[in-house]
């Protein structure tokens, strides 16, 4: 059996291929590896944003959607990119300049940073520090800073409201998210991503010759559900799209952004959804593990599965009101996630 998790990380392998070693090898390999993974994600986003999102929503609402340019309308991605980038960048009067410009940069880059520690199968893994899980959550949380910068610097009341709501939602749902993730860490006893994935390849039980692996979604489905719901709030999709809420506060923190900045924010949102999917996959669904297909393909299937789920929720579930939204976060999710954590700790303590 081919080991799913090659112990050689991507930068080292690139350095090896180029025949470099030492510090130079690390730097060049690291940069090239990061470049590759970032582009890989941008390609996913390009497919997800202008094309897949429209197709999926159209399927939910009995429509056809983009089908004019290219096969299945796929070249819409190109035309949309040109369209969005060639629009005028309108910068309103009275915006707080450095913050206004930095906000849209922070959002996609924080999400990209999170991918540094995600094992994607077939040896595509940029870094594997011992604190991998913590790093991923910490990096994705930087986005909150970007949101509050955008909301506050835009000099627009809807932006301000959206920024405040974004912060409130990130705080309210990040705690349950991380606490739920911590219940997985209790099982594994390590924060290292490669180790978390490796432990999930162990068999859980065998039924009629089919071995079910020890994915934590099977071990603790309750935690998985909590994690997915909290994740939905993290990425701001229905029923938790309160920070954007188009019919209430126009577009929230991104009201005053156009052209390139708009694209950056959009990219950030989609990469965040993929990061959410990647974290769920790594912590609960065995990372890149899966039968028959190569690990990397399974990884893509899993993050696209999560993406599909967010779009489904968006098309089907009404938005909560802002106070109900926070109620669910603080009074529901937080309590349940701590209950889950304590329960897991007790069970693991008793068994171990």
């Amino acid at each position: 059996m081919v080991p799913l998790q090659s112990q050689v990380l991507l930068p080292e392998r690139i350095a090896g291929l180029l025949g470099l070693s030492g510090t130079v090898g690390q730097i060049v390999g690291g940069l090239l590896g990061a470049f590759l993974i970032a582009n890989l994600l941008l390609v996913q986003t390009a497919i997800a944003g202008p094309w897949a999102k429209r197709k999926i929503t159209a399927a939910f609402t009995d429509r056809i959607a983009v089908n004019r340019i290219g096969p299945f309308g796929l070249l819409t991605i190109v035309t949309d990119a040109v369209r969005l980038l060639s629009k005028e960048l309108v910068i309103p009067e009275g915006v707080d300049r450095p913050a206004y410009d930095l906000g849209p940069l922070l959002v996609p880059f924080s999400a990209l940073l999170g991918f540094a520690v995600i094992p994607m199968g077939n040896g595509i893994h940029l870094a594997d520090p011992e604190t991998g899980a913590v790093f991923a959550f910490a990096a994705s949380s930087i986005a909150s800073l970007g949101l509050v910068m955008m909301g506050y610097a835009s000099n627009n009341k809807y932006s301000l409201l959206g920024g405040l709501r974004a912060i409130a939602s990130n705080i309210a749902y990040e705690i349950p998210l991380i606490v739920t993730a911590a219940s997985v860490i209790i099982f594994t006893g390590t924060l290292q991503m490669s180790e978390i994935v490796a432990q999930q390849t162990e068999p859980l039980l065998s039924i009629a010759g089919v071995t079910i692996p020890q994915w934590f979604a099977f071990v603790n489905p309750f935690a998985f559900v909590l994690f997915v719901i909290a994740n939905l709030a993290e990425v701001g999709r229905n029923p938790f799209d309160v920070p954007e809420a188009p019919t209430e506060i126009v577009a929230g923190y991104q009201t005053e952004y156009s052209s390139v900045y708009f694209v950056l924010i959009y990219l950030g949102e989609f990469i965040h959804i993929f990061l959410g999917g990647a974290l769920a996959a790594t912590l609960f669904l065995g990372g890149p593990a899966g039968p028959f297909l190569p690990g990397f393909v399974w990884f893509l299937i899993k993050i696209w599965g999560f993406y599909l789920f967010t779009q489904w929720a968006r098309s089907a579930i009404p938005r909560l009101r802002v106070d109900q939204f926070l109620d669910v976060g603080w009074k529901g999710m937080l309590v349940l996630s701590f209950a889950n954590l304590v329960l897991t700790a007790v069970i693991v303590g008793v068994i171990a």
Partner: protein
Amino acid sequence: MSLEEPTPEDGAVEVLPTTGDEIAELLGDLVVDREEHVNAPGFVIRPDTVQETLRRLRDEAGFDHLSCVTAEEREDRYESIYHLTSFDDRQREASVIVPTTKDDPVSESAEPVFRTADWHEREAYDLIGIDYDDHPDLRRILLPDTWQGHPLSQNYDQDRPQIVTLKEWENPLADDHREEEGDTMYVNIGPHHPATHGVLHVKTVLDGEQVADVDPDIGYLHRCEEQMCQTKTYRHQIMPYPDRWDYASSGLLNEWAYARAAEDLNDIEVPEYAQIIRTMGAEFCRIASHMLAVGTFALDVYGDFTAIFMYAMRDREKVQSVLEELTGQRMMFNYFRLGGVVWDLPEPREDFFEMIRDYLDELPQAVEEYHDLITSNEILQARTIDTGVLPPEVAKSYGATGPVARGSGIDYDLRRDDPYGYYDELEWDVITEDGCDNFSRLLVRLREVEESAKIIEQCLDLLEDWPEDERNIQANVPRTLRPDDDTEIYRAVEAAKGELGIYIRADGTEKPGRFKIRSPCFSNLQTLPEMSTGEYIPDMVASLGSLDIVLGEVDR
């Protein structure tokens, strides 16, 4: 909130004064002169006794519904007419006429008695120039604040510049009202905002996420519809305009409002066969309009162009296809004529009937789908139940009608209470819900769609069996209509949004002397501050959606 509101004189089962003489006796010295309108007795009173008169009529004669206020400048006087009726018995009507002098047009405001008078009197002030004493907030309503003069007054000069710049108009010495340490934030919601359903501007003061104050600012779509109708002849030229009031597929209902008023003014009898076609067409319009209302309301609550909106649009398209077969148009029908309709059902009739039957067969399933998707959804219920509460007394005081009133438990529907068309021959029910909240208004609309389908089905049965040689689609109406000078009429129909009334004063020519539209959306929108003050922004947006306003009708 229950329906069992005790009427003012619950104990004494005395008959309320209804005829002109009885009401005149009740009002006593307040009446200085009597007039006779086609629809109701008219009582001329002095401008300083408006509140006393209206209060007495409301409390002692049961006239609890101020349907409309019509103002006009005549040769020798200004005149405000208060069209009163009763929620319990729509056929009891009375007009209170308040003349004021030319040089000092000041009249007492009716706002302390009927809160709906607030906006109606502001409109009268804006367009005609009558001052209402004791009015809490007499500002312009349809025209911008910087407008010069009153465009429906007789000495109005259109060639003068009509608007001055805000800078010229503003008082340079006025205080800046912004507080240094205020806790509230002022937000302009609209005129361009995803949730305002058109060009509505809601001046909102927020306290955090909660709405501290709301002031709808209307008039962005004011197209002088009333004045345009005054420049056209009764017989054919006015009929296309009603389609443009509530343009969100209630065209035939609007046309009926004009047709009813003009037919009663000119004593035109409509053939039974045409009445059935009218009834059927009107109910199709109601379904289309309610579908749009449900879809956009879901849009406001769900937040994106989701499945429900698309499904509602799909079902509305089907209705529009039927209407296109019938009238030749999908939105601007222009199908009614005084005395009937313009042409008979399309040939071959069997195909048309089959098309409608197919639609009616599918409808229950479609409505069930909405209940699955919307009304039985827990999150939607959490969002809409007990939000945007409008108690029945408040709704009555604001003159709310249609699904808004029926969602507050007010059993009031002109189709039954003041029958016209073929409605009183058919079996159907008036839908009411007692929740008084956004959810009730949604439910009322969905259930009314089912009632409309019932009506259509019965009309269809009648039309199918109608003998071929008795298909009379139009009465014999003279080519030129010249109602007698000074005949006045106020007639209303149940449009999709509520009571759509038309006041016409004939001046002896073939064109109306005064044409006034009582728009249901105009009165319903007035309840928005009442419903949403103190609630969250999303609830305000949901309440606005549940009112189902069309700005074309609000602004006219």
